[in-house]
Structures are given as C-alpha cells and as structure tokens.
C-alpha cells in the first residue's frame, strides 16, 4: 500500500509538472531514447541517475551484448537491417523448402484428409453438410481445390485410399504454404518482442526443425491454416503494439485492423482460435490500463483508444465471422447428409430436400390434420400410439408422448368441442383462444388430461388419449393460446402457442425426462400447472387439408441470423457428443509436452507418424524449469533490493516481460485442454508448442547473454558462441535423425535391427 501511495504521489506531481508525451517504454531503442525513458511506468528506477554515474567495469562488459545485437540488429530496431532481412528471406525459403519437399507423398489419403478433403469437395459441389468446426478452413480448402483444378469428384472415403488421377497436390501445397508462413512469422514475433536477432533466429530454427509442425503442415488439414492465423494474429498484435508511441497513425490503424481480421480468421477455422483471442484480449486490457494511467492525457483521448479497439478487435471480428457463415450458407445450397441435424425450416432451403419447394396451407381450420412440434431446442412431435400407460405408473389410458422422428402417429385432427368434422364444412380458421379437441388420427382417441400424476414428473398432471371417435368427456377440451399474432388466425411453423386444459388450467408440456422401456424411451408429455415453462410452447409443422389453398414452404425459410444461431446450437451439441468411451485410447494433455505418444498419419509402406522432435520438446521443458528457477531467483534478489546496474536491470525486465508474455500465451493455449471432457488429440498441442518454442528461444538467448554476468569478457564471448553453435547443431542433428517421421519411413518397424529408425524408438509408446 505504501508503495502504491508513493507511486500515486509521484504520478500526481508528474501530472502537475511537465506533461511529456507518452514514451515507448522498455523498447530497448537507441542509447538516446533509453536515457529519456528512464522513468518507466512502475517507477522502479529511482536510482538511475546514481547508477549511471558510478563507473563500473561490468557495465562495460555488458556492452558486448549490445554490440552483438547492434552488429546484427542495428541500433534502431524499427528499421530492418540487412541482417534481419537476410534472416527473414533465408527462413522463408527454408520453410517453403522443407514443407514442400515430398509434398505428393504419400499418394493416398492421409488421416483427417478424409474429412477435410471431403468437406472441401462439398464446397466445390455446393452440398450441405454438418461439422463441429466453423467453416472458414474448409472453405479455404475448397477454394484451394478450385484454384488448382480439382473438380470435387473424389470421394475421400477413408484413409489409405489412393488418389489416382485426382488433383490433390494443389490443395496440399497451398495448405503447406500457409503452414510455412508460421516460421517467418515466429521470427518476426520474437524480433518484435526482444529486438535480439539471435533469439529470433533461434526461434525460427527450432520451429523449422520440429518434425511435428512439419508433418502437420504438409497435408490437407485445418491445422496449417489454424497455426498460420494464430501466429498471424499474434504478429499483427505485436506490430500494432510497437506503434503505441504514435497512436492513430496509418500504420497503427493498419496493424490494428489486421489483428482483428486475423483473429476472426483464427476463430473461424477452429474454436481453438478462441485462445489467441483471449491472449490478445488480455494484452489489450493491460495496454488500456497503461493508457488510463497516463495522466498527461485527457479522457477523450482514452475513450478514443477504447473505441478504436472495441470496433476493430470486437465488432470487426464478429462481423467477419458472420460473413464467413453467410458465405457458407450461400455456397451450400444442395441437400446432403447433414440435413437431419437441422430444423424443418432450415431444411426447406436445401435443393433436393423433401421440404424444398414443398407447399402446404398457411393456416389451419377445424377439420385439418396437423402435426404439432414442440418449439424448445430438441423438441419432438406430439405423438400417441396404441399402447397404454402401464398399471401402477399412471392411470391405464393410451400413452401420449413426444417423438423426434416423422411418423404417421404424429397426426392429429383438429375438432370443435361438440361436433365431429365433416369434409363439407365451411372453412373456419383457428384463432387465438379457440376451444378445440385434438383427435389422434390413427387410433381415434382424443387428447385428454385429468387430476392424476404424470408418470415421471409427478407434480404435473397426466396426459392421455381417451374416448373413441369423438366420444369423451369435459376433460378433452383445450384452449389454444397464441403467444404473438393474437389478433389473426394461427399460422403454421411460425406461430407459437400453448395448449391449455380448460378444467385444470394446465399447459401441455414436453418434459426433459424420457419414459422408460414401456414408453419406448420417448419423451414424457405432461400437463404443467405452472404454464410459464418454455417447454410448453408448440407450433404446427405440417397441415393436410384439401379445402385450404397451398403456399410454398419457402416463406418459412429462416433468416440468416436464425440459421446462424441454429447452426451454432447444432455445433455445440456435436462437440458435446465427442466423449471418449471407457478403455478407448485417447490422448491426454499431460502426454503432450513430453511427446509421450504420436499419431499415426499413414501406415503401409510410406509411414508418416505425427511426433514432435523429441529433442526440441524435451528441451522446451528443461528451459521452462530453468527459467522458473532464474526468474524466482531474480525476483528474490529484487525483493531483497540487491543493487543492480540500470542497463542490466532494464535488459532483464524487458526479457522477462517477453518471456512471461510468451509463457502466458503457451498457458492459454494449453491449460484449458485439461478441463475438457471431449476427445482430445496430440495435434491440439501445436499452437501451444509454437509459443513454448519461442519462449525457449528467448530464454536461451538470455541465458547465453547472461554469461557476461558470470565470466570474464573473453571467456564469456567464447562460451556464448560455443553455446549457440551447440544449440544449432543439436537441433539440426536431431532433425536429421527424425526426418523420416515426416518424409516417410520404409521397411521394418524401429525395434527391428535392419530398420532405418533403429535405435530411435526412445519411448516405448511411439509407434515407429
């Protein structure tokens, strides 16, 4: 608290005194810039002046590090130097080369290509389908296919089927190109974070040489696209952040827009993209917090900052996301095997579906035959059949249930309370508050309720089928109560109504419960005395009445927003359904960082096995542990107020904040999986892996540079280069060892002495 008070006092004085424009802090710019910036946000550096004046030998030694950075990176990091540019080009070339090498192999369908290739084909054929992922990734695959001459005719029936003459290479190559962008992006991300060329090169190298990322990028999958958009979002955000000293300039706007667009794409490929949205969101909140604390600016300025972010980081992505769905609905107009997941109204717009271009009456009258559907999500049709409620459960009358499939037992005849319908009757459309009886058409029993318990939900009354062919009693009378459109007649599909029992004043409800075996596990229907329940709302779905004029069902076609909401409900349901079964071997989050088990991509003669480069994976873990130690040690030193050089302190702060940010990104992309109950796969880890590897690069760079703190100048210089060389050569050699994982393993399995992979099965759990 005392510290906070002190800080406030200082900020208050600053507010009164000179109001300098906001300075980029910790950006590690030129010497001149750093001198001005000595007063940073948290006000930790009160001793700057004193320290600067103390001549210190170590200070001079530390300049070596500066020299290394300057030699390669230049003194003004904004301007890309020749070295930086060379690095970017080299890594772009190398990543393309590694990703496109042997892109045609294997010549058969690999793993999930069977899904995503198929879905790409469906876009080309414009066939509607259902998938748990949002559409962008598959649309892109479809687009790639069209661009490279694939006609969508291949069935992608199951993994291992030969492609033959199909033009599949184009799709793979374009996916691989997206996947290749990940490496130059990581190069620039680390550069933006640290302005250390060594760290940037290390990060790019390690990601380049990881076999898992390589394999994942080479096939027709969503993952190369997802990785690309995740890295793209991160990169755009950091670029945007680097312009924070000059807000509202063109570049600032461009990168902010870019961030929003990339985020939208990431989340439109797979919902895993949500984690990068979280990352950017948290960073933005922190950023806004800093801006809010800058007392030299007035509130208008802060509101502008806030609004700019709201528009470009929230509104823009939401709009783009919906645009992708709009395209999805526009493109897919033919009936396919996903229809059944969607509602009647939704299906009516699909060419080839039974409901497409169908026609039926717009309203119904006494004497019409109707089917009645519950309006709640997952509601069924009001149903009855020639079976009684069993003795001891409820009164033994005919069962009335809710059934989810179309069936002739769903048909009811609407009747007046006191007379039987005659075909010649004049048409009398049903209105709000009309009193009706409903007769079950196949069994001729009337919908009935009375003061008896419902079979399962015992606080409700029982609903039965009673009487025969119009005979019955006063408990057969129902009032139809429309929720909206009260003044007109009750229409089909769109008008929602309740059926209120006249005597008991209760509403027919589909409860959430299922009847046991005697009720064929259909849903229970009861009469609910508390009629506010949303499960007691119904609508008419189909009408058969020769007397009424037919209109096209097309008028019920849902609006875009309705389709959008419905498809999300269906997707959520699909995702919930992906539960592992007992004894099924599923991948678990703890296995991922330790590279415990991979995923077979292709068997047979050209074997591909998705497995991370174990040296890099395990190296990441070691570095994580080492960093924790170093960080805690440094934190303790700081808590104990050990004296440190300003330069060293600044350098450490900058590096540590970069490390912590990457660590946060890793955690956000990894830890949520621990809480998920659905089926998980190893490839879910790769977004997190990229962050973890960049983190490793930054930490390694820091560790190597901190040699100067411990050793004399010459020794440190030598050790630094020795260490770097060692890291690079180990990475390259490990890639050399494990490259067959990606480029095809042939011959016997690894435990056979003649195998090319002999001795490389380091864990028993690897299937190589």
């Amino acid at each position, binding site marked *: *608290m005392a510290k906070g*008070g002190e800080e*406030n006092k200082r*900020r*208050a004085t600053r*507010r009164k005194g000179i109001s300098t424009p906001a300075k980029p802090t910790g950006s590690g710019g030129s010497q001149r810039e750093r001198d001005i910036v000595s007063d940073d946000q948290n006000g930790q550096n009160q001793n700057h002046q004193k320290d600067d004046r103390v001549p210190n030998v170590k200070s001079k030694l530390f300049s070596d590090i500066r020299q290394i950075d300057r030699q390669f990176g230049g003194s003004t990091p904004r301007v890309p130097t020749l070295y930086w540019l060379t690095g970017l080009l080299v890594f772009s070339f190398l990543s393309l080369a590694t990703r496109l090498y042997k892109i045609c192999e294997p010549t058969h369908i690999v793993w999930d290509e069977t899904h995503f290739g198929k879905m790409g084909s469906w876009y080309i054929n414009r066939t509607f389908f259902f998938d748990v992922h949002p559409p962008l990734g598959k649309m892109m695959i479809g687009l790639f296919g069209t661009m490279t001459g694939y006609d969508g005719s291949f069935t992608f029936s199951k993994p291992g089927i030969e492609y033959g003459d199909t033009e599949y290479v184009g799709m793979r190559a374009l996916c691989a190109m997206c996947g290749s962008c990940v490496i130059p992006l990581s190069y620039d991300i680390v550069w933006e974070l640290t302005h250390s060329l060594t760290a940037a090169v290390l990060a790019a190298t390690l990601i380049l040489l990881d076999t898992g990322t390589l394999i994942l990028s080479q096939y027709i999958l969503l993952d190369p696209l997802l990785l690309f958009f995740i890295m793209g979002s991160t990169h755009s955000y950091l670029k945007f952040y680097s312009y924070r000293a000059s807000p509202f300039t063109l570049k600032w706007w461009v990168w902010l827009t870019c961030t929003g667009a990339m985020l939208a794409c990431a989340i439109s490929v797979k919902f895993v993209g949500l984690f990068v949205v979280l990352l950017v969101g948290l960073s933005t909140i922190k950023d806004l*917090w800093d801006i*809010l*604390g800058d*007392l030299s600016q007035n*509130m208008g300025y802060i509101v502008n900052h806030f609004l700019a972010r709201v528009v470009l980081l929230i509104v823009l992505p939401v709009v783009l996301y919906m645009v992708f769905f709009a395209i999805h609905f526009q493109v897919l107009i033919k009936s396919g095997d996903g229809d059944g997941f969607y509602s009647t109204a939704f299906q009516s717009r699909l060419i080839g579906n039974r409901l497409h271009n169908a026609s039926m009456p717009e309203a119904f009258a006494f004497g019409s035959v109707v089917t009645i559907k519950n309006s709640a999500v997952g509601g069924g049709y009001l149903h009855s059949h020639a079976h009684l409620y069993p003795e001891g459960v409820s009164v033994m009358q005919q069962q009335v249930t809710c059934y989810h499939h179309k069936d002739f037992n769903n048909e009811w005849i609407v009747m007046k309370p006191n007379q039987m319908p005659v075909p010649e009757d004049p048409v009398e459309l049903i209105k709000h508050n009309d009193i009706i009886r409903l007769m079950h058409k196949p069994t001729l029993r009337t919908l009935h309720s009375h*003061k*008896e*318990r419902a079979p399962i939900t*015992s*606080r409700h009354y029982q609903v039965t089928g009673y009487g025969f062919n119009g005979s019955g009693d006063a408990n057969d009378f129902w009032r139809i109560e429309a929720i909206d459109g009260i003044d007109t007649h009750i229409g089909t599909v769109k008008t929602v109504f309740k059926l209120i029992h006249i005597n008991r004043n209760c509403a027919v409800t589909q409860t959430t419960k299922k009847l046991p075996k005697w009720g064929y596990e259909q849903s229970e229907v009861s009469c609910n005395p*508390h009629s*506010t*329940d949303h499960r007691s709302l119904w609508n008419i779905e189909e009408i058969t009445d020769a007397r009424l004029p037919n209109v096209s069902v097309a008028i019920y076609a849902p609006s875009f927003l309705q389709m959008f909401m419905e498809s999300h409900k269906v997707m959520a349901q699909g995702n919930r359904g992906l539960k592992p*079964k*007992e*004894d*099924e*071997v599923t991948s678990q989050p703890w296995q991922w960082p330790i590279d415990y088990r991979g995923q077979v991509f292709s068997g047979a003669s050209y074997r591909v096995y998705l497995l991370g480069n174990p040296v890099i994976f395990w190296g990441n873990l070691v570095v994580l542990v080492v960093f924790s130690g170093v960080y805690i040690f440094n*934190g*303790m030193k700081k*808590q*104990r*107020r050990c004296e440190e050089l300003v330069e060293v302190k600044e350098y450490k702060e900058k590096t540590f904040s970069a490390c912590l940010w990457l660590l946060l990104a890793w955690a956000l992309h990894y830890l949520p999986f*621990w*809480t998920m*109950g659905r089926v998980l796969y190893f490839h879910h880890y790769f977004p997190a892996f990229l962050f973890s590897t960049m983190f490793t690069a930054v930490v390694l760079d820091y560790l190597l540079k901190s040699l100067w703190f411990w050793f004399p100048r010459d020794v440190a210089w030598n050790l630094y280069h020795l260490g770097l060389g060692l890291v690079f050569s180990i990475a390259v050699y490990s890639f050399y060892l494990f490259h067959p994982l990606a480029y095809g393993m042939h011959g016997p399995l690894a435990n056979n002495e003649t195998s090319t992979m002999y001795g490389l099965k380091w864990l*028993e*759990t690897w*299937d190589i």
Partner: protein
Amino acid sequence: MESMSKVGGMQSGDGTPEKGDGASESAGTQGTSSSSRQKMLTVTAEIDLIQIVLFVVALVVRLPGLDHPRSVVFDELFFGKFAGHYIQKTFFFDMHPPLGKMIYALVGYWCGYNGKFAFDGIGKEYDASVPVWQMRLLPALSGCLLVPLVYQIILQMGCHQMTGVLGALLIICDNSLHVQSRFMLLESFIQLFCLVSLLSLLKFREKSYSPFSCEWWFWLTLMGITWAWATSIKYGGFFTGLFVFVLVMRDYWRMLSDKTLSDRQLFYHFFARVLMLVIVPVVLYVGVFYVHLSILTKSGPYDANMSSRFQASLEGGLAAITKGQPLEVAYGSQITLRRTHGKPCWLHSHNHTYPRWYDKGRGSSQQQQVTCYSFKDVNNWWLVKDPKSDSLVISSPPKAIRHGDIVQLLHGKTLRFLNSHNVGAAMSPMNQEVSTFIDYNFTNGRVEPHNLWKVDIFNRESDGDVWKIIQSQVRLVHVDSKQALKTSGKQLPEWGFHQLEVVTDALHAQNAAVWNVEEHRYTKSPDEKERDQDLTRAELIPTQPTQLGFFTKFWELQAKMLFSQHDANLDHRYGSSPLEWPLIEKNVAYWASEDTKYQIHLVGNPLLWCSGSAVVIMYCGTLSFYLLRRRRLLFDVSDDMWREFVTAGELLLGTYAANYVPYFVVDRTMFLHHYLPALPFMILLVAVFCEHIVKFVSNISPNYRWPKILVLLLMVLWTVLVLAAFTKYLDLCHGKTHLVAEKLQHLQWRESWDFIYPM
C-alpha cells in the same frame, strides 16, 4: 473456539435495534497494558457476551428434534453405512476421503452402535441399535459453531461488532445450512474447518509482529491442520486451504523486501511455513489413510473395485479363495485371467460363435466368441499349455513360466485354443478379432490357427520374471501379429450376451491390455473328469496371505478415488450444474415419509442467496469502479476504507471463488450441496459489504445523519425479511409439517423446484 474472544470496545447499540442484549458489555478492559505490568500467575479473561448469546441462539434453533425423522435421510445412506463398515472392520470403497466417515464411526462406536444396521435405501427406518441422535449431534454442533466463528472473523477483519452480529444472524437464518447440519452429512465439518482456516490466517497475520511466538505457531499449525482435515473429509475442502496457503506465501514474498530481516531469519520463516502448511498436512492426510487401511482389514461387498492383489490382502474374500493356491503359473496350470485396471472382468469364452455377418455387411470368422465377463463363472477358466508338448498335465516338478515364454491358452470347458487372426473385431473393426479356434473347413481351404501367445510380464523389475498369481501383471502378446490382448471397452450386442468385447491392439502400453491371474490350480490328471474334480490340493502353497505395504495400497486407493470414472450418469433427477446454484434453480429432496405427507428438502433461503449473489456482483462492480477512478487519481474513499475493502474482497471473494469456480470443470453429477462450502464466505462478504455501504454513506454526507439512518433502517428491514423467509421455508427443513398440495405450491418459489406432490 468461543473462549478465545476479542474485546469489543465499541458501542454496540449504534442505531441498530437488532439485539438489545448487545449492550451487556462486561469485559475486562485492561488487556492493553498487560505488557507493562507483568503479574505472576494472573489470568486475564475477556468474554464477549454477544458471541455467546449468538451461539446459544444457534443451538436453540438448530438442535431441537435432531432424531426426527428416525429414518435414513439422503446421503446418510452412504455415510451411515460406511460408519457401520468401520465398526465391522469391513473394507469399503468410496470416492471421498475417509475422515468424515471415521468421525461418525467413532461417535457410533462410543454410543454402542454395532454397525449391523443395513442401509438399504433413503427413508428406511432406523432400528434401536443406531444412535441417531448422538451421530447427528456432531454435525449440528459444528454447524452451530459457524455462528461465533463468523462473528470472530468479521471482528478480526476490523469490522464493527454489529457487522459481526449481522453475519452471524445470516448464518443462523439460512435454510440450507440449517438442513445440512442436522443430518449425518459432511459439509458442516468442511465449513467449520474452512472458517477456522480463514480465522487462523487472520490471527496469524496479526501475530506477524512477534514471529515464532507460541500463538504464532499455534495459528500457523491450525491452518495446516484444518487444511488437512477439510481435505480428508471431501476433496471439495481442499480449495480454501490452498487459497490460504497462497496468501501466506504471498505475505512471505512481501516480507522478503524487509531489509531488517537477515537471510537466515527469512529461511527460518520459510521453513516454518513449509513445515506447517505442506509437510504436516501431507502427513496428516496420509495418516488418515493409514488409520483407514489399518481398521478395514476384512473383505466386503466393495472388494471388486480393487485389484486382485489388494483384495488378496484382505481377510476373507479373495484371500480365502486364493489361499492354498500354487504361487507360480506353470505349463499345466488352470487359471482365471482378470483385467487388472478398470471395472473387474475375466477373460471368458462360451459355446457360441460370432455371427456370420455384422450389420454393415462385414463378415466374421464365425469362430467361438471370446469376451470379458464381469461375473465369476465356470467359463472363465483357461488351461495353460506348452506349445511343444501335447500334455495338459503339470509336470513334476512344475515348470514355471517366465517372462518371454510362449504359451497356448485352452478354454477349460470347450477345450478350444485362444486365437487371434487378421479379421476385424465385431465392434472395433480397426482391431483384430479374438476367438477360440474352431477347425473349419471352408470351400476355399482350411483356416489356419494362430494361437501362440507370448507372456510379457511388465512389472518383472519389482515382482520377478516368473509368472505369479495376482502379483504379476502380464500382457499377452499374440506371436503372429505382435499385438496385445485387450478389452476394447465396448459391449457386444445381444448375440454376445452384452459381455465386453476382447480384441488385440498394436499398442501395447495401455491399461486395458494388462491382465493378472486370479484363481489358479494345477492340472494333475490327464483324465478329463478327474481334471474337473482334482482341483483343490496343491503343493507350493504360498506361505502367507498376500501382504501389501501400506503405500502400495495407499497409491492404488488414491488412483482409484481420483481418476476412475464413477458415475457417467449425468441425469440425476436432482442433479444441477454450478450455474444453477447461486439462484437455487434446483432443490435436493432429502427425505419424504412414505405417504409423502412429510418431506425434507435442501433449499437455500431465497432472499439471502439472491442478495448474496447480487452482493458478489456489486462488489466486483464497485471494485472495478474504484480501481478505474484511482487509476486517474480520483479517490472516492479514504485510504483506510480502501484497504479494508480490498482486503475483505481478497479474502472473502477469493475463498468464495476458490470453493465455487472449480466445479465448473468437474464432469460428474453435482448437487446443490456442493455449493455449501462456498456459502459462508458469501454471507461474510454480504455482512462486510453492508458495513462498507454504511461507512460510504456516512462519509459522503458527514453533515447529515439521516442518510445513514435510512440505510441502516433499510438493512434492518432486509434482515427482518431474511428472517421471515427463513421461517417460511423452515417447513421444508424439519419434516414435521403436513405438506398438502396448496402448502407445497405456496413454498414453490421456483418452478424448477421438484417437490413430491401428493395427488
């Protein structure tokens, strides 16, 4: 706890006419100068009468009629039953740790309960042997103790005494706390320990100026002990302790910047905290299990959850069967093979074949079915045969089978070989089918047998490379395909009698592929009939019943408790999800008399719960508001008030969230009572937030008294309404009111509450 009280130096009648007896302040007031004049053998006592009065009120409200209804109420079904198991020393398996049930067992034991009452179902009447009243007294008492504890905590946080009274009253007035504490359930213990943890933290912080003093040690130790105890009752009790631990460690981290402390002193501080908050709790927790396992030595109905070797270490049960069995499996052995992990089942075959065609036109081998069967059966017996010899008889001396040996397995009843081949299995077409081989002669030639299996004992490092019964965990690797025998976890349809499917899989390292021999005997005679009879006598009798070390048992039990999927059934009638708790969208029916005229339900006090949830949101809102304003150097409240406000939020909102948020990621059936450990913290937050409002109001209008009085009046009114709501819903708590339909309708605050309506 109430003897350790704090003097309330403040005036209590401060405009709030809630409790008239608050004025009776008769405490010794000389505590402040005790350091200056030290008298020998002097006891300075302070008694806070308010606290005692509150406690007495709680007792009067909570205790009467504890033994009604005299029948099993809700989870008493389990906890009462398990208490009986302790008294009978019969092993049982439960996913909650044992301490809570031990407490009930101890009380029952003292009061002469023999543990023989059969807990068959909720609503069953207790017979005279069960000391119902005594066993229910303990949770009721700990429920009452919450009242003075809450009072203490509020005072310790530096709040006004009336705030303490308010908090304590609210605790008394909550229906859910009332119901939950009146039966043999575990939540009131957890609540008690959690609150003591929090109080200890506050006291410990207060004593930080005199570290390593007796009191300092006392409160530190108490924090550790209550953490361990709360965790040993239910894992839900873990989070308060964890949160308190984090706070202690953060305080320590801040202490590092105190330059007056030497590094050595800091190390001592660190060591003391780790000792008391890590090592002691772990030892206590393990100790509870040690007692648990030392008491429960006899086998019982829950054995089947555990592995064979665990079962064999219990008296009776499997130990009785396996005693006298030969230890080492040899060529000529007759064995049953049990799946080691997961729900128990045994490798099984029977005289039925796989159907010729499956649903999708895929064909089978039409060989005899091999399944995993969950019950003991004569068809679970297999004979181990040496592929190189024709004899089924044990050689003399028996030739034990070692790791890497090749065997054939013959089904005992049908004498067919265990076989696998390149045919897709029935339910998992990606895996190979396993069958017992029939020598078919199809038109395109005979099918070839592939019936050699390699024994892969993978725990040979610890248990030796000879195949032993029970101890050795083996994988049976099919020699021709190099795949391991495993259960796929899927059930066969009707033609397979709904038994579990058995397949082979290329992936060896998985739990489903681990088997162990359970029952075992040697085949002595080549004659078939004699083989069936001459079974029991054997040489090489294991000298002793299986002895398992404590830690072996402990780890197995832990793994089973924490990681096994107990009930995938997410569709309980009274189950609810965490989002439904704060506004009580679901009740839990605890008990109903047979004619359903009398019922007991767990529901919260609706007014209190709703206001509490609103306060949680209001607190967060206010905090963000202050924070944003302070960032712009606009100070709405004084530094002292701000500090109090933040500390209260950190402690109370923190503990509340720590007890509530984790349930969002739990994937099992949950009930309203899972929310109860978080509830006292919410109530504390309500009380503290009320005080903040009063202070805030009197701060912004220092010249007028009426705004403050108005606010106070509103709060009194609100408290009276809470009290009224409490009495209204009390009918659902005692099971003594005749609940006719109209009455139930009257009490039905939410449509989603599920009462049992008489018709």
